[in-house]
């Protein structure tokens, strides 16, 4: 009798129509709103954050590129092949050329050592030149650069030489008209002391030959500047590396400024972590709401089966529902993400003064893909479990959630989370830390809940006191309670971790470069000038800072054996340069400067470091091994920076031999220090005890804070003490401060976004158990339990769960912070004592309030209506 054609079975179109109708109707009933909200949240946070970081990162790179006056720089003591410039032009890159050298300039009355810099037409490729028409006059931008026969000079050149604007200045064999006062050049800090000793004189590159100042053997720094598409620059950088067999390397701003690159890297890590947390939280919310949705749909699936739907057709229907949800979530989320990022930009208008580059399309893909992964990992398993619903359920309701008790959803969820974490962080370390702390929390949780909830698994509903009622409710729903505590603790943990990390990062940055950071370095000071300079500065009401003696020392042997080269095992051959050395010595060259024949005579490479001696431990230094020698010191001791000591394998008590000014000095390692490298202050790898080096002819170094008008003092200072060298880092410090301010604001906003995601999770978790609470409390009330009793019991139940979650979250947050800060953010970790009170307290209060608000409906609706609704 089986004369039925296959056409009688539902077609995909029919199934999709049914799916859409269920979707629409469920939407009306509010069922799907939380699920959709969670998915929208995931897309919004990912696309919003990605859009923002995408644009911000490019903007920051662009802005910091002004420190180079280009995107990439190639520099050397010898001129790199000219064809390389042509090659770059052919590849569509912009190029410019710079030659820097020290030279004497003359007027009819006086002469002056200046830092001359010759630039080609296109200079600067990034950033701008600011000039004025009178010394110390109002500045305006002029990127044309000096024409041939003209020079632009820094203000104080004019009084020093007794010149007026338009007068003639002599440089080598050349004669130049002073046509502008140079106020600011983007790459002022490039090159070391040799390039920057003395005030700047900027000239046209084509005038250099006629001056005849560059002779074989003169010290010139050649720089090629490049700017253009990042991708093309990378390709070109590879080409240059190949051409030069590794002798030349294109450097970008990250190579140039440790401070900026640190700030950028940390900011990026934080944003990454933030969006990761946001997505994970949204994922949890999706899992919870999808689970609740599917629980409610077991009946649907059973009924559909009695109506002849096959398991596959049921899967198709719910797949259709999910797919439609995904589509809506992606569209709505992308729009919201766009708005969020626009909003962030609006808020940040004051700190991000530059025009942001257009966003790319990638963030939207990222958002959509995230939603897709979330959907598959978190929402699909419970919904697909629907197909296993037994149709018998229509006859026997107690065939309840059997399909969900399998571990499939968890496996899917965990796998999805892992994929997301790895994909986002692209960083195994962060992934391990996150997964580790989550696993830790889960472990602690299982142990704790086992102990706490073990008692009375058979405990019934003892309606005697609210407390008893609450506790028995927690125990009765033990599995659910554990899940709730898990979700709550993960959520609170994420929020705590981010909040603490944010605070620590921002505090750290503020400590790094406080408002009163000295922004001028004075060097080459002889000991008999110190007193005079101090009184000059006091007269002019400028604060003085310590004068550090400074001398170059090369480490020869450690306990008699040749000293290993500290950066041998490092890709980054330049290693860490102290601000002092950056100011005092030349920048490391890209090209092996073979012309320095003095070096090659030595049997080993000896690295010269600027060292000092002092009785007082400098600020921002911390002794981590041994003791600081203090006032009662004796000569022959040295204090070594800890990481440096590790690199050269030096420990306390080792005997080091240095060569200082052709003399050999022996010193014993007395203690080790940590140093704050990013504070833009004099920092030293080696500090000797007083009396060790005193006779070796050191010069002194000190710092000054000069703001605004005070800068004019430099002229008088230099007139009185013509031999000293002043290095101005005020522009650099300002730049770094502004970048840090931008990154800080971004961090604040991301933290806020994650907070919203967290709130969503808490809400959906409370909601997830609502049905059962409804039923239970309706029954309790029909049994005569008072409203007040039930409310109090609910409050206690949630508060208890919240407290538990708060404690575990605090534990987890501190744990993950410890690893994150020490491994990823390079910060020192210290316990946050207040959090140990605030965490549990916040957990208790927030969960109790949320839960109470959500379940208030339970008590305010009549028991009859509740029972009716639920039995339908």
């Amino acid at each position, binding site marked *: 009798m089986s004369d039925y054609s296959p056409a*009688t079975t539902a077609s995909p179109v029919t199934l999709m129509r049914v799916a859409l109708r269920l979707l629409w109707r469920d939407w009306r009933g509010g069922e799907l709103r939380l699920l959709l909200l969670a998915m929208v949240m995931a897309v919004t946070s990912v696309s919003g954050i990605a859009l923002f970081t995408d644009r911000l990162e490019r903007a920051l790179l662009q802005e910091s590129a002004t420190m180079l006056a280009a995107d990439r720089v190639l520099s050397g003591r010898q001129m790199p092949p000219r064809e390389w410039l042509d090659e770059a032009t052919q590849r569509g890159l912009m190029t410019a050329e710079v030659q820097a050298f020290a030279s004497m300039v003359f007027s009819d009355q006086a002469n002056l050592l200046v830092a001359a810099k010759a630039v080609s037409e296109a200079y600067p490729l990034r950033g701008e030149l600011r000039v004025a028409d009178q010394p110390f006059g109002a500045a305006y931008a002029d990127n044309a650069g000096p024409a041939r026969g003209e020079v632009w000079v820094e203000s104080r050149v004019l009084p020093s030489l007794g010149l007026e604007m338009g007068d003639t200045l002599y440089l080598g064999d050349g004669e130049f008209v002073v046509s502008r006062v140079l106020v600011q050049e983007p790459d002022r800090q490039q090159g070391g002391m040799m390039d920057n000793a003395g005030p700047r004189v900027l000239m046209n590159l084509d005038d250099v030959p006629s001056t005849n100042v560059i002779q074989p053997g003169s010290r010139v720094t050649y720089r090629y500047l490049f700017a253009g598409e990042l991708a093309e620059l990378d390709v070109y950088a590879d080409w240059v590396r190949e051409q030069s067999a590794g002798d030349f390397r294109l450097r970008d701003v990250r190579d140039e400024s440790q401070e900026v690159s640190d700030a950028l890297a940390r900011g990026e890590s934080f944003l990454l972590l933030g969006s990761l947390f946001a997505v994970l939280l949204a994922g949890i919310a999706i899992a919870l709401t999808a689970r609740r949705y599917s629980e409610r749909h077991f009946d649907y699936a059973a009924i*559909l089966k009695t109506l002849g739907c096959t398991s596959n057709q049921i899967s198709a229907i719910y797949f259709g529902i999910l797919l439609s949800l995904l589509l809506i979530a992606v569209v709505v989320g992308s729009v919201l993400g766009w708005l969020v990022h626009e909003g962030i930009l609006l808020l940040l208008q004051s700190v991000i003064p530059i025009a942001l580059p257009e966003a790319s399309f990638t963030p939207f893909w990222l958002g959509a893909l995230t939603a897709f992964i979330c959907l598959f990992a978190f929402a699909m398993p419970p919904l697909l479990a629907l197909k296993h619903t037994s149709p018998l359920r229509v006859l026997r309701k107690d065939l309840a959630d059997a399909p969900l008790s399998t571990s499939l959803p968890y496996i899917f969820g965990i796998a999805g989370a892992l994929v997301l974490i790895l994909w986002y962080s692209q960083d195994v370390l962060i992934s391990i830390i996150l997964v580790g702390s989550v696993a830790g929390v889960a472990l602690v949780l299982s142990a704790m809940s086992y102990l706490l909830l073990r008692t009375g698994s058979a405990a019934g509903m003892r309606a005697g006191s609210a407390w008893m009622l609450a506790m028995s409710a927690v125990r009765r729903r033990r599995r659910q309670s554990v899940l709730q505590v898990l979700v709550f603790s993960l959520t609170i943990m994420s929020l705590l971790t981010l909040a603490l990390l944010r605070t620590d990062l921002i505090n750290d940055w503020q400590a790094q470069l406080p408002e009163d950071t000295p922004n001028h370095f004075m060097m080459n000071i002889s000991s008999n000038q110190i007193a005079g300079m101090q009184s000059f500065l006091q007269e002019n009401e400028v604060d003085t800072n310590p004068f550090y003696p400074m001398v170059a020392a090369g480490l020869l042997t450690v306990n008699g054996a040749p000293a290993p080269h500290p950066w041998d095992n490092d890709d980054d051959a330049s290693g860490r340069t102290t601000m002092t050395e950056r100011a005092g010595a030349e920048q490391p060259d890209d090209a092996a400067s073979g012309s320095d024949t003095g070096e090659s005579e030595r049997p080993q490479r000896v690295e010269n470091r600027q060292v000092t001696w002092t009785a007082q431990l400098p600020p921002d230094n911390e002794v981590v091994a041994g003791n600081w020698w203090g006032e009662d010191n004796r000569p022959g001791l040295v204090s070594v920076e800890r990481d440096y000591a590790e690199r050269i394998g030096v420990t306390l008590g080792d005997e080091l031999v240095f060569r200082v000014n052709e003399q050999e000095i022996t010193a014993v390692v007395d203690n080790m220090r940590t140093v704050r490298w990013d504070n833009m202050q004099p920092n030293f790898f080696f500090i000797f005890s007083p009396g060790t080096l005193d006779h070796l002819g050191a010069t002194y170094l000190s710092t000054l804070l000069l703001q605004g008008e005070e800068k004019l003092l430099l002229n008088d200072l230099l007139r009185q003490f013509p031999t000293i060298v002043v290095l101005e880092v005020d522009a650099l410090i300002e730049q770094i401060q502004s970048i840090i301010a931008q990154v800080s604001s971004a961090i604040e906003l991301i933290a806020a976004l994650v907070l919203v995601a967290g709130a969503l999770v808490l809400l959906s978790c409370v909601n997830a158990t609502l049905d059962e609470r409804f039923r239970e409390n309706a029954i309790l009330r029909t049994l005569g339990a008072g409203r007040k009793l039930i409310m109090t019991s609910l409050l206690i139940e949630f508060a208890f769960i919240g407290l538990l979650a708060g404690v575990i979250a605090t534990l987890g947050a501190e744990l993950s912070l410890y690893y994150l800060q020490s491994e990823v953010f390079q910060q020192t970790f210290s316990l946050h004592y207040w959090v140990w009170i605030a965490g549990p307290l916040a957990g208790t209060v927030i969960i109790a309030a949320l839960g109470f608000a959500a379940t208030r409906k339970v008590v305010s609706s009549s028991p009859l209506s509740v029972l009716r609704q639920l039995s*339908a």
Partner: protein
Amino acid sequence: MTAMIEARHLTKQVATSEGQLIILNDISLRIEAAEAVAIVGVSGSGKSTLLGLMAGLDSASAGDMFLDGQNLSTMDEEERAQLRGRSVGFVFQSFQLLPSLTALENVMLPIELKNDKDARRKAASLLQRVGLESRLQHYPNQLSGGEQQRVAIARAFASEAKILFADEPTGNLDAATGAKVIDLLFSLNAEFGTTLVLVTHDDRLAQRCGRLVRLVAGEITEDSAVETSGVENGTAGEASTAGDAAHV
């Protein structure tokens, strides 16, 4: 001729914490087309379980179950679902309407699942037939229990099923409403010539079927023709009596 429903030595047992529990023991039963059979018994005697097995909602532990000439025991759940879609309709004690769909949409569902483009019109006319033409756009929770059950009946007949299974269709209704619902069920049953299997512990309701099967602790203790009290299903009663004699 093959029977519409035939159970051969059907046994259902489940594993419980106290060992194997035999719910149905060696049930053999034959129901011809257009018969109306009442299955009665005390609570827990296995009525719903038997109904579930006969409708292919569950599979037996032993024995064979034939429905509309097909052996359910050899089919998998997918094939059984397709068979249900083609041949079987249900009415349940707790109505089992989809709460988020309107009355009309609930009735349309089985028709649509057969790819019938005419679902809306057919569903509307069925709802009219059960007297709910003014409630098409109402949701289940806006309808009374009796009205919901009438929607469920309309849905059961919407699939043009040959066999209708009803498990305590009046169990959740008061006597008067229940009687109306039953009248409706029987008149539609006669109109469509459907085979009806009705589980109840209401003897008066059982009287309206042509045949009564009594279950006690999972075994059939009585299978007899009934003096029908309904006018509409007289023919069905006679048919069942005949089949009954041949079978037992």
